[in-house]
């Protein structure tokens, strides 16, 4: 295994997001106040209440079970939640806090999911798997759903290792090609009446932004002409209820923008396999230009002429260094999507629209 030097997301954060996907009402971080701070803020914007037990030095030495019991009781009083997640942190896990025992002692009415996890525990997906496992054991999700998602998450980890951000020891952030360069290329293909495929292969809520590229290209096609095939991993029948809602929102907005999705490649939590399905589907369609949005590296056999739209500056570095000169970034996508319930404009999309309007007037 390569030693990866650039920062990676931690299992704790993945656990928090997965709890959000399960529609928990409250997340209790059992640790020092700063643990998971950035993620907590974002999640609060998405409607999840995040609280901390605020461990101090003395709690590290003497244990903080009582703190957790009290915080759980307070949470119960204050928010009357149905579903609560207690997430471990490095601090609590290293000293061996017993989340289960504290939850029992608190004896509150809501279902509480204890997530024994900390940042040393491996790739971020470990945190997500842990949450799903606990949720399945408490009957919140069916066991088959847990198995399916676990398989997806393990494939996602493998994908990162083979082709993604953990495939290189160090990746210096890169902002990617300019939106103008990429938008011009798309418009050029449309005006030459060539065949374009737009593939949305995104992860959960990031799809709200990447889907905008489809809307923009459809907007351009209607004015300039050309031929476009749309593939999206927004199957509304796959995944947790919250994730299905995302798919439904996106399909609704695409429909409104006049985009007909030609092929549903899978659910929003299936990007490691949906990418393969999308590539297969396009094989015999005589496509001249592929626009791959979200997690392009999950699509096999990328070609240097492909347009790759993604949000991670290190992912972009990886692409640019590998010769993909049309890799373009939708930076900080994630932070602008919290609480979104519809497609959000993208920079590439806006650039395409602007260029088309210029040509038309």
């Amino acid at each position: 295994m390569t030693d990866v030097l650039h920062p990676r997301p931690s299992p704790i954060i993945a656990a928090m997001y997965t709890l959000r996907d399960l529609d928990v009402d409250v997340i209790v971080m059992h640790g020092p106040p700063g643990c998971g701070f950035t993620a907590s803020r974002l999640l609060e914007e998405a409607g999840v209440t995040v609280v901390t037990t605020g461990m101090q030095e003395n709690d590290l030495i003497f244990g903080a079970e009582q703190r957790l019991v009290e915080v759980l009781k307070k949470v119960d009083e204050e928010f009357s939640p149905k579903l609560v997640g207690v997430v471990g942190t490095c601090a609590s896990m290293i000293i061996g806090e017993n989340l289960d025992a504290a939850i029992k002692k608190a004896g509150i009415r809501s279902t509480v999911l204890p997530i024994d996890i900390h940042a040393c525990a491996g790739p971020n997906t470990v945190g997500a798997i842990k949450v799903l496992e606990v949720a399945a054991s408490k009957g919140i999700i069916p066991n088959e759903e847990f198995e399916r998602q676990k398989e997806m998450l393990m494939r996602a980890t493998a994908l990162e290792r083979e082709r993604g951000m953990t495939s290189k020891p160090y990746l210096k952030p890169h902002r990617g090609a300019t939106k103008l360069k990429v938008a011009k290329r798309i418009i050029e293909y449309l005006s030459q009446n060539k065949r374009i495929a737009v593939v949305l292969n995104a992860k959960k809520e990031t799809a709200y932004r990447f889907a905008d590229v489809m809307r923009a290209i459809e907007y351009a096609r209607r004015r300039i002409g050309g031929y476009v095939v749309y593939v999206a991993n927004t199957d509304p029948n796959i995944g947790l209820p919250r994730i299905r809602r995302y798919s439904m929102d996106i399909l609704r907005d695409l429909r409104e923008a006049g985009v007909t999705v030609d092929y549903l490649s899978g659910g929003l939590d299936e990007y490691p396999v949906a990418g393969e399905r999308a590539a297969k589907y396009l094989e015999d369609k005589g496509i001249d230009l592929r626009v791959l949005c979200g997690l392009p590296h999950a699509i096999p056999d990328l070609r240097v002429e492909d347009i790759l739209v993604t949000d991670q500056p290190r992912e972009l570095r990886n692409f640019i260094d590998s010769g993909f000169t049309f890799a373009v970034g939708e930076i900080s996508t994630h932070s602008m999507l919290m609480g979104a319930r519809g497609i959000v404009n993208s920079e590439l999309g806006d650039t395409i629209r602007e260029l088309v309007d210029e040509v038309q007037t």
Partner: protein
Amino acid sequence: MKQIAIYGKGGIGKSTISANVAAALGERGLNTWYIGCDPKADGSMTLLGGRKIETFLERLRSSPGENRPAYVEGFNGVKCIETGGPIAGVGCAGRGIIVAVQELYKRYFADNIDVIIYDVPGDVVCGGFAAPLREKFANEVYIVTSGEYLSLYAANNIVRGLENLRVNLGGLICNSREIRNEERIVSEFARKIGSHMISFIPRDPIVRECENRGKTVIEGAPESSQASAYRRLADAILKNSDLRIPKPIDPEEIRALLRENE
């Protein structure tokens, strides 16, 4: 499956008792595992002819994911594991125990095991040392003590841990230091904390002799009365159904008890 943990003051003879009980259970044909949780990793030596084995954590570190059995088979088929841990003064031994116990439970312990014995170092000092007491791991605990104040004091502290963690105590094992009225003292103390003395193990030089030869008494002197004492303890543990969450007492009460029996 019985999953037991042996606690007690440092130096009281936990490893000797654990290893001999394991050997006696192995002799009965039971699938028995001995898990030494001391970072020094020397508790299983008498089951292994005096040999020291590669520790579980060391293996995890040097060759993670490797698929050879985690244990070394010792006398009477007892499967021995030493969790290991950092050398003195480095890292966190408690964390080591947590990781090792979780990993063992997840990856190696199967349904066909009859008894797992955790030989835990000293007192329950932190979350790590308490790890074998967690739900799913050990479900009954035995405390080794003698009739001396300090070991009863330590036992009382362990009881405090058990009460706090809501774990069942199976009883006290008196490892005799040959002090006056020892059996009575330990029985009385056991009663006071809401438990019982499950066995009295006499002091016998044969134990050291066998240990010097790298053997348990069950192996080294199978006909001895000492070997019988260990066998009786093993039987008593197997049959024991008197499991209760104990209650600690005031150390002053221990002193009073000792004064009464001087």
